């Protein structure tokens, strides 16, 4: 990674929401740097402000304190080089796979040209949905729907990919398979990935680095590199130092869980 530039930079970021029961601190003094093309998993209990972290990076909200920068520019509005994958695929039910993938072009520019369709064919093939272009979302399984969601996020070829618990709505087997496929995609076309999750195995399998957060207020309690080389497979995950690392993450999470 050597001379890597910083893709995402959080400096003393705080986020307070006004709610009916008074102000709610979602994030408190968050400092975080993610290098270009680094794969970072953000791990934490629900309500710890993980999604807020993602929305701040996307420029969908502005921090009430501190500064968020992407490629050294303060984030003041959504950028073109950021793609988002949501927890639910949230596809357009009336549009087929191809039209869902090209939706960003149609929505942003009002039209879909021949180069757009070529690019769509490329990303649809990359997520393994070649031949399903004319299907409606209702005709696809949950895993396939989320593949379309990923293809839609990759369509504009973003340098930064923000993923908000993208596999948490899938069954366990599909979830593992999707993880390996995501790694393949990432290795074939490197991107900076911020991957929000509450699953320890998922974080360990996918990420270069794991950020552990605590809830209310959301704070970073640990920031550790994953002791695993690449490419990764199931046997590598069974190595004792990886198991120790996962156990350590679990302790951190349980210690910070206020209800336990």
């Amino acid at each position, binding site marked *: 990674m050597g001379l890597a530039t910083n893709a995402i930079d959080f400096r003393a970021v705080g986020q307070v929401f006004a709610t009916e029961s008074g102000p709610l601190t979602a994030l408190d003094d968050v400092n975080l740097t993610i290098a270009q093309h680094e794969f970072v998993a953000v791990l934490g209990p629900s309500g710890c402000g993980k999604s807020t972290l993602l929305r701040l990076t996307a420029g969908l909200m502005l921090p009430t304190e501190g500064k968020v920068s992407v490629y050294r520019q303060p984030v003041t509005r959504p950028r073109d080089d950021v793609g988002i994958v949501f927890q639910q695929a949230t596809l357009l039910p*009336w549009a087929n796979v191809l039209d869902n993938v090209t*939706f960003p072009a149609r929505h942003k520019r009002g039209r879909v040209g021949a180069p757009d369709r070529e690019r769509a064919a490329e990303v649809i093939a990359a997520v393994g949905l070649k031949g399903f272009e004319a299907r409606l979302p209702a005709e696809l399984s949950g895993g396939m729907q989320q593949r379309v969601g990923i293809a839609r996020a990759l369509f504009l070829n973003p340098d930064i990919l923000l993923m908000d618990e993208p596999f948490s709505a899938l069954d366990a087997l599909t979830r593992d398979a999707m993880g390996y496929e995501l790694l393949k995609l990432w290795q074939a076309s490197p991107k900076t990935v911020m991957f929000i999750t509450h699953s320890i195995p998922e974080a360990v399998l996918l990420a270069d680095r794991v950020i552990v957060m605590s809830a209310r207020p959301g704070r970073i309690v640990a920031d550790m590199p994953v002791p695993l080389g690449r490419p990764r497979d199931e046997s590598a995950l069974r190595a004792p130092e990886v198991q120790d690392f996962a156990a350590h993450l679990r302790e951190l999470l349980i210690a910070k869980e206020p209800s336990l």
Partner: protein
Amino acid sequence: MSANADTSAKAALTQPMREAPSLSLTERLIVMPVVLPLLTFVIILVLWEAATRVFAIPSFILPAPTRIIEGFSAVTPSRWSAHVWATLRVALIGYLVAIAVSLPIAIGLAKSRLMSRALYPLLVVIQSVPVVAVAPIIIVVLGTDDAPRVVITFMIAFFPLVVSMTTGLMATPPELIELSRSLRAPQYREITQIRLPYAVPYIFSGLKISVTLAVIGAVVAEFVAADVGIGFFIQFSTSMFRLPQAWAGLVVLVAMSLFLFQVVSLSQRLFFPWSLPKERR
């Protein structure tokens, strides 16, 4: 063993050819869409006819179905079509005006909390005004041509449309709105490409309710002031004590409502099949 396998293989082969062999007669009647309600209807008609004859019920209290059918010939077909066209025209224009007015209002209510706080209570007040009571006032203000009748129809038909459209426009998954914002797309495309299509199932439930209300609106308006139309015809016939032909007018009104409802249902099935629940596609 092998014989068994052989017969089951044969059964598997012939299976697709047979038409649901396990269904009993009652089950088949339940599955068929038209037969059972039609049968019920015919039985009721027969009982009705028999009751009026056996108990010698006078026709101004309850005319027999056969008398109602005779009632259709009380006026000429061309007069009938004039009545039908008058009511249908007012109902349709009022309905279209209601759609045209409620859509921008619904978009405003869904997009702006300020507008929804300011307008919604007012809409509820308007809806709470009994239109039948206001109708004479509207006729005096607007005269006796189509205009007041269209306004009355509009007033009855538009509230369910506003409510269903607003609900639909707000039912969009918030993630899609975030996607739209992250693409920095023009605001109007959030409405045209995301919110409106998402609202289609809601809009159609409003359209179905309102189309039958529009017929009611047209009839109410004709009760107050008209010289043509099914509503006028029913009122005129009752005032002349010709009850069988008033019932005939009622039958025409029911047919008109059913027809308009079916047109709305069919256009949803035809143009927006994805917006229907899966089993009804």
